[in-house]
């Protein structure tokens, strides 16, 4: 019986395609962005309906569906287009088949329903799978990208290093911060590390706890930590929480922290008088244009 139904469907291919196109174009006005041009939409529809029909006929291998879905994902077609398309196809095909058979009895109809579902289901499953795999891939890539910028350590002078922290700190990131910090202290031979938390949105007990642990570890290596970039609202929240920050030197801004760091390392910034050289020359941009 399944074969008969397939034959009916394939014989009435033209009709199904026509009806399908009509339905899907109607959906286009409601659901999809106007960015998709009419020609692209039509050529894509044609391909899509052929992929479905081929797979029903049995000569569409999974590879064909995979190629098609790869292209769709690459071009950024919405998943709803795929699912809508297949649902519409199911409806149109059912209509067509039921129209062409002469014994529309209850039991027979439910058989037909079952067969048509068994054609459409594997395609839906595969396409949705392909889409979700591609999303998971993107998410994992972004995770890696995020981790790459999660805890940089910047040596600014001999013995002074800065670690700017931006964004939410979770357990994983806290671990990463600790490792980077300790490794950096050793590598740059740092005496003072400034940890800047200007970009950390919330400092709760967990974040504070991790900061304490990191600074304690740095202290064991013989270096000092200064916590900078504490915004007024964060300061008030820390006081309310009742966290004791007295063991950890803090400054409101990176600038003040840097001055303290200079003091600790016995350095000083001096302004040089009689600046004779122009900035261009200092930067090496003058290209011998001066005519002295």
């Amino acid at each position, binding site marked *: 019986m399944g074969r008969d139904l397939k034959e009916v469907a394939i014989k009435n291919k033209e009709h199904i395609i026509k009806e399908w196109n009509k339905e899907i174009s109607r959906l286009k006005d409601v659901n999809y962005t106007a960015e998709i041009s009419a020609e692209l939409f039509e050529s894509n529809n044609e391909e899509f309906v052929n992929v479905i029909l081929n797979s029903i006929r049995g000569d569409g291998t999974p590879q064909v569906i995979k190629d098609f879905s790869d292209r769709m994902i690459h071009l950024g077609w919405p998943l709803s287009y795929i699912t809508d398309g297949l649902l519409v196809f199911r409806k149109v095909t059912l209509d067509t088949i039921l129209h062409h058979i002469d014994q529309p009895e209850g039991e027979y109809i439910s058989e037909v329903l079952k067969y048509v579902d068994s054609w459409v289901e594997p395609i839906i499953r595969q396409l949705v799978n392909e889409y979700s795999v591609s999303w998971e891939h993107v998410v994992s890539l972004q995770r890696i990208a995020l981790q790459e910028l999660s805890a940089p350590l910047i040596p600014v002078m001999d013995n002074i290093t800065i670690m700017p922290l931006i964004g939410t700190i979770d357990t994983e990131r806290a671990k990463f911060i600790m490792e980077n910090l300790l490794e950096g202290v050793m590598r740059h031979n740092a005496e003072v590390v400034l940890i800047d938390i200007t970009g950390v949105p919330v400092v*709760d007990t967990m974040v504070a706890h991790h900061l304490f642990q990191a600074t304690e570890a740095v202290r064991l290596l013989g270096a000092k930590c200064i916590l900078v970039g504490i915004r007024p609202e964060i300061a008030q*929240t820390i006081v*309310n*929480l*009742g966290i004791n920050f007295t063991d950890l030197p803090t400054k409101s801004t990176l600038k003040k922290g840097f001055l303290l760091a200079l003091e600790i390392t016995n350095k000083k910034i001096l302004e040089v008088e009689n600046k004779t050289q122009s900035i261009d020359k200092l930067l090496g941009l003058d290209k011998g244009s001066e005519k002295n």
Partner: protein
Amino acid sequence: MDSKSCVRIMKEWDIVAARQMGREIAKNLGFGTVDQARITTAISELARNIYLYAEEGRIYFEAVESLELKGIRVTAEDTGPGIKDLSLVMEDGYSTSGGLGAGLPGVRRLMDEFDIESEVGKGTKIVTVKWVR
């Protein structure tokens, strides 16, 4: 207003989701930046407690109104192991997880109203309110 929003806490990143939703609601209710930070931090503590000890629970947000005050009610509810000694966990410096032990007493100080109920083996419910000044 009777709208009630809810965030389910199961993963560590749900804490961030709860925080963001709470901050957004607090901002819309007219809280200043300092109170926004207080509310967000309190939510963070409550959500983290759920994540650490109960594994699964929910945080509810509600706008509340009394005669002359407007405010936000944050409710944390879980079906975790419960707390044996409530007075002990409200003490500063008490922690079973090696943390700072400032979480719950901190939340009480960050918010205006604080109420905790817990039954061992059943779960814990914490209701807090912050009023707009």
